[in-house]
């Protein structure tokens, strides 16, 4: 009876008195008078959406999401449940970071610009390439953008984009959509025991190739051993070498610049974001040769009128709001806040922590594979390669049945073949790994 706003938006602050004054000032009796909508298209129905109190709304969402099972996820393939230091949430959630807009007024956005500049610098160090933008949506869209970059910068009349046959469906499909408006064609080349089948790729690559794509680690968790050869092949055929990876892998694996990569894409949210049903952060780094063709926003250092260092969005003439249909991409809203979180997580780990985390991904995966391999009816890892963080397991029983049994006992794994399961150690505690091995023994026999 005493509550105001009971029938309006709780976030509109108008008192009745203020509303009257404002309506008076604009010469209207009610807000309805201000709308200039022809009667024919006026909506006089209801959405039938009930208003709720804040508490009820929280309860509703909690109740809905409570239907998600609480499983230990041994899942990877691009998204990982690494532990995120508490620092990241506390600082990234400061409302100045969370609620600000794109930095079109850099004078009142220095803090965010600097954080993004630091994010770009992190990627420059990780990739060895000179330029990193301050985010794409995710790995799949970054890959798509790499292809349109290849199309723009190609010297040849080529139109073939070569990707591994084992490519995540979301990446492949997104890539297809990104090149649908061009003459590019996506073609798969074979893999061999988890790595690039170099002979087959050599066979497949000709001057029609404008882009070669490889991943390290690969989708099956193997560490790619042929990167330099792929790089050489790209040079020989004047194709762009695009490498897929992520910041943790890049902390220890071969530096992209050292193997001739022209572009690095991937999902950088492996640092900074919990598993969020596929929400990501598209990593995009490239050589300074392609500076004017880079998609997405770039933060640059400059000076203010007192000659102090200051940061600003730069080279905006590449972007849609200036260049419109001749822009390097249509991206506008991006994943800046996720990039902030990634930078914070990386800063929190430091170089020692990042290398540690990466190396533990190798040793813990190795350990788990050995333990699984000891089980009856199980071979792990399937591929005779070094593995990073995850690997494929061959099981005698049908893989879907095993995965289903594991799920009932609290574990989620990937089914990647009729008799193949993929498991990942990232973020899983030693105690849960022990429990997983025990459970696996029971369900796999």
């Amino acid at each position, binding site marked *: 009876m005493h509550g105001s706003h009971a029938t309006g938006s709780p976030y509109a602050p108008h008192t009745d008195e203020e509303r009257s004054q404002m309506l008076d000032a604009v010469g209207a009796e009610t807000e309805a008078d201000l709308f200039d909508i022809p009667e024919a298209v006026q909506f006089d129905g209801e959405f039938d959406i009930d208003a709720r109190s804040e508490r009820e709304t929280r309860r509703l969402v909690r109740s809905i999401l409570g239907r998600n099972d609480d499983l230990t996820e041994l899942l990877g393939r691009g998204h990982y449940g690494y532990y995120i230091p508490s620092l990241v949430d506390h600082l990234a959630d400061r409302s*100045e970071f969370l609620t600000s807009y794109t930095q079109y007024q850099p004078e009142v956005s220095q803090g965010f610009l600097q954080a993004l500049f630091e994010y770009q610098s992190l990627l420059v160090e990780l990739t060895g390439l000179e330029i*990193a933008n301050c985010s794409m949506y995710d790995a799949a869209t970054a890959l798509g953008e790499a292809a349109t970059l290849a199309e723009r910068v190609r010297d040849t009349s080529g139109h073939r984009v070569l990707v591994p046959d084992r490519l995540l469906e979301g990446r492949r499909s997104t890539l297809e959509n990104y090149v649908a408006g061009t003459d590019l064609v996506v073609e798969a080349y074979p893999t061999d025991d988890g790595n690039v089948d170099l002979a087959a790729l050599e066979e497949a690559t000709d001057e029609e190739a404008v882009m070669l794509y490889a991943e390290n680690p690969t989708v099956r968790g193997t560490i790619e051993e042929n990167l330099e050869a792929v790089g050489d092949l790209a040079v020989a055929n004047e194709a762009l070498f695009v490498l897929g990876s992520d910041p943790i892998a890049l902390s220890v694996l071969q530096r992209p610049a050292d193997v001739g990569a022209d572009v690095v894409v991937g999902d950088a949210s492996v640092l900074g974001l919990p598993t969020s049903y596929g929400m990501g952060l598209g990593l995009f780094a490239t050589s300074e040769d392609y500076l004017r063709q880079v998609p997405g926003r770039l933060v640059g250092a400059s000076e203010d009128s007192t000659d102090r260092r200051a940061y600003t969005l730069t080279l905006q003439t590449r972007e*849609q709001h200036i260049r419109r249909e001749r822009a390097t991409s249509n991206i*506008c809203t991006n994943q800046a806040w996720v990039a902030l979180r990634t930078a914070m997580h990386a800063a929190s780990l430091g*170089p020692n922590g*990042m290398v540690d985390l990466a190396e533990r991904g190798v040793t813990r995966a190795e350990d788990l594979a050995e333990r699984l391999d000891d089980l009856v009816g199980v071979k792990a890892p399937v591929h005779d390669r070094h593995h990073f963080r995850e690997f494929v397991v061959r099981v005698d029983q049908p893989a879907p049945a095993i995965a289903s049994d594991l799920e009932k006992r609290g574990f*989620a794994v990937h089914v990647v073949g009729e008799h193949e399961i993929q498991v990942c150690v990232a973020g899983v505690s030693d105690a849960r790994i022990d429990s997983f091995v025990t459970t696996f023994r029971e369900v796999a026999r």
Partner: protein
Amino acid sequence: QYEPLLSEKDLTRVEIGGEDDGSPLPDDLTRDSLELPELSEPELARHYTRLSQMIYGIDSGPYPLGSCTMKYNPKFTEDVAALPTAAVHPDRSERSIQGTLELLYRLQDYLGRIGGMDAVTLQPPAGAAGEFVGIRVAAAYHEHNGEGHRDEVIVPESAHGTNFATAALGGYDVVSLPSDDDGRVDLEALEAALSENTAALMLTNPNTLGLFERDITEIAEMVHDVGGLLYYDGANLNALLGRARPGDMGFDVMHYNVHKTFATPHGGGGPGAGPVGVVDDLAPFLPAPRVRENGGSKSETSYELFDPDHTIGKVHGYQGNWLVLIKAFAYIARLGDAGLADASAKAVLNANYLASQIGYDVPYEPFHHEFVASAGEQDAADVAKRMLDYGVHPPTTKWPEIVPEALMTEPTEVESKKTLDRLAAAFNAVADEDDPTLEAAPDRTAARRIDQTSAARSPRLSWQTLDLEDD
């Protein structure tokens, strides 16, 4: 106070591989070293706290960026997005994430009702990605109907830059459409632009001048008559909630900017989300997968993923920006019918009230949730810089170009009369100032006017390119 770069606080090089480091990998598979800042939690907490203090956010004051709908972001939506039950991997089995699927299903349903659309995908991670889905769906639809020859997309001159860029990314030729004298679509020009090659017309309504396209029914008919589709750019939907729906106006496909209309925070540039709604005819072409009910037990409905029959595939690796979608769902569930309608009512009232209080000329009306004033003889960009000195965020400037020295202003419903008065005072103070004052602005901000030319001419895009100072 200047905050050094992390790299000015520390740079530590860690060697990898080599003889005695115990690296688990052979040297030929690893890099040689990694050089990054190694800092402690107290140092990082201070660094990022300090950086945050050099940012103007929605909790700092009014943020009237036209076309950006910078609403207050309710705090509780952060809590629900942070629920541990929300943290699920995208490869989880459908059976094990019924909560996630239910929320997505309900949000699809909410958005369909709000936009008057028959089917919705939540996959696009941003508005531009939503546009891209719309364009790809249109292409697939035409192709499916044997009309793959349609190669033109019509875009009004005053439209958002993303419309042009998206159409181009989709492989279309962009046909630009001038406005009529009233600032709306020129029907004659439209007639001239339309042809059997027209794939779609992209339109926002109200348009970027805040004007409702009164001839929308006729426009829809004209587009449909030549076999084209009508695309609704949802950037300005906050003007219409509960009063008009794109679906009812004849639009075939639309995107929603949940980070505008539904108050999810903009995060300094993103993440947002750009769900797309379509009429029944286009539903088979939407991205895969979508969510539907599949019966379930008596007490609880269950949900499953499915691929539309003629899906265009994917435009994102998974299902878009899930955490953002949770916040949008919570916002809509909180406000309900009455709250949503009130949001639009107050947004339009606020725009009209603010315009009535400022001295700058507003050439086009009646506007709705936003208006475009003209800075007249002043440089609109300078006006904006000077407004910063008055402690408020300026409007969008120099666009749309139909208004000279445009000040595109959208206060949203969350500003009180007192705040609007303060904002108007800032406008009016700057209106009375001379050019040298404006050109010297800002002088009360963390950084003074920044040299854009220098930034672009000699790009320094990482700390590796700078002469670092030891902190």
